[in-house]
């Protein structure tokens, strides 16, 4: 394994993050550009930190997101930068955002559970759009009649919203407070309405499958 001096290491890491198509993790750096060098974890962390500082006053910044490091434009420049593209960024409906928020905060969660919290049915379109954007994915099936799919958010979701982990989700304390205050009573599952919910859930899943 070859040695690499700090200046070269910094240049290599900087260039690698810049030319990559998606965020670059430290592991990826080690497996690709740094494969033939001996680089301590401390040295790598140090250059990443230095790079972050170097770009602080500039038009772009080095940030850490869930799947690694990426350079991105400064948020305050977006009104002008968005003029570089003909199309404006997609807007998401409240139904979509509420569904996404529930999956993010309550994962893994079934469609039926989302519907019971929101009080309305979740359209298949919303689930499809969120899946196609690779923001959510099916992580399993709940062992209840109908075996409904359990949804969770993905790394790409965190990357897209500039988050490093689910713990960084804004106002997660609102949900935490709920969990402490309102433990769902054990009888809840025996309630008449929940039976209906489950029926709706099964019906929806069948509908999805038919699509």
């Amino acid at each position, binding site marked *: 394994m070859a040695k690499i001096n700090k200046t070269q290491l910094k240049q290599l890491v900087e260039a690698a993050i810049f030319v990559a198509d998606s965020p670059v993790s430290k592991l990826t750096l080690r497996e690709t550009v740094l494969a033939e060098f001996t680089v301590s974890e401390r040295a790598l962390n140090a250059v990443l930190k230095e790079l972050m500082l170097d770009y602080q006053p500039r038009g772009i910044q080095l940030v850490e997101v869930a799947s690694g490091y990426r350079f991105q434009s400064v948020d305050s420049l977006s009104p002008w930068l968005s003029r570089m593209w003909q199309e404006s960024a997609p807007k*998401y409906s409240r139904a979509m955002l509420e569904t996404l928020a529930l999956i993010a905060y309550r994962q893994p969660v079934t469609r039926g559970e989302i519907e019971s919290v929101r009080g309305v049915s979740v359209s298949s379109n919303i689930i499809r759009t969120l899946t196609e954007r690779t923001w959510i994915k099916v992580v399993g099936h709940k062992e209840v009649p109908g075996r409904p799919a359990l949804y969770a958010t993905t790394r790409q979701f965190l990357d897209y919203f500039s988050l490093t982990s689910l713990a960084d989700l804004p106002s997660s304390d609102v949900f935490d407070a709920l969990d402490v205050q309102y433990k769902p009573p054990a009888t809840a599952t025996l309630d008449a309405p929940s039976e209906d919910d489950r029926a709706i859930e099964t019906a929806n899943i069948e509908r999805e499958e038919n699509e």
Partner: protein
Amino acid sequence: MAQKEDGLNNGPVQQPLPLAFINGEAIVEKPEDLYIPPDALEVILETFEGPLDLLLYLIRKQKVDIVHLPVATITLQYMEYVEVMKSLKLELAAEYLLMAAILAEIKSRLLLPRPDSVEDDDDDPRAELIRRLKEYEAVKVAAGALDAQPRLERDVFAVKADVPPSVAPVRIEPDVSLQDLVMAFSHAMKRAAAFEHHTIEAEALSTRERMSQILSMVNDKTYTPLDALFTIDEGRAGVVVSFLAILELVKEQLLLCVQAGPYARIHVKLGCHGED
């Protein structure tokens, strides 16, 4: 609780955008009462995300805490909305009607005399509805917070630098084991044996290898002395292998042998079609 109130006020529905235009006049606020033109109501109802959203709106209008859910008033108002809705947007009605039924049930249970012994919250018929309202409110807050989060393509843009042409993809070649190779040979030979009638000639490997080596030592331009193709250090066996290889090559017309006269040095060059 102050935090919860804030959450309500910051909810996306409460943005001061015109909800509807009635006779060219923008309606910015949701109406304080029900005396509004029905076509405006239709637009307003569409802005609710469901019965829980509508209930939260009605509670906020009453300026009361969710915890003290005034079931009687809310039910009355809710039913009035649902009545209008039933005539306008039938497909919306089912979920709203279910909520109406829940409200009516709570209301009737509240009217029943309650035994003094069970005074705790759990027995409050409103408890479950309050829990759902709070949970839904939290979802609204979370959705709003998520929407405010710096988002790729809207607030920040991923940056990319190009690479010069000197950057070329690195291809990792597959591994092959010696066993794979031998098995492949064995298989090819067995298949050939099974299907072919021609005999498969087999020279000693060492001769075949030497043939390849000799071919790469000579060229078709200049003659190479024959003795240059022998290596003394290999001993007799080596010389024999080389000799066999040369004979085989000459037989296959791959090597051209020339001798200027008797006992002169023999020279070889690559057999070349062009000279024929």
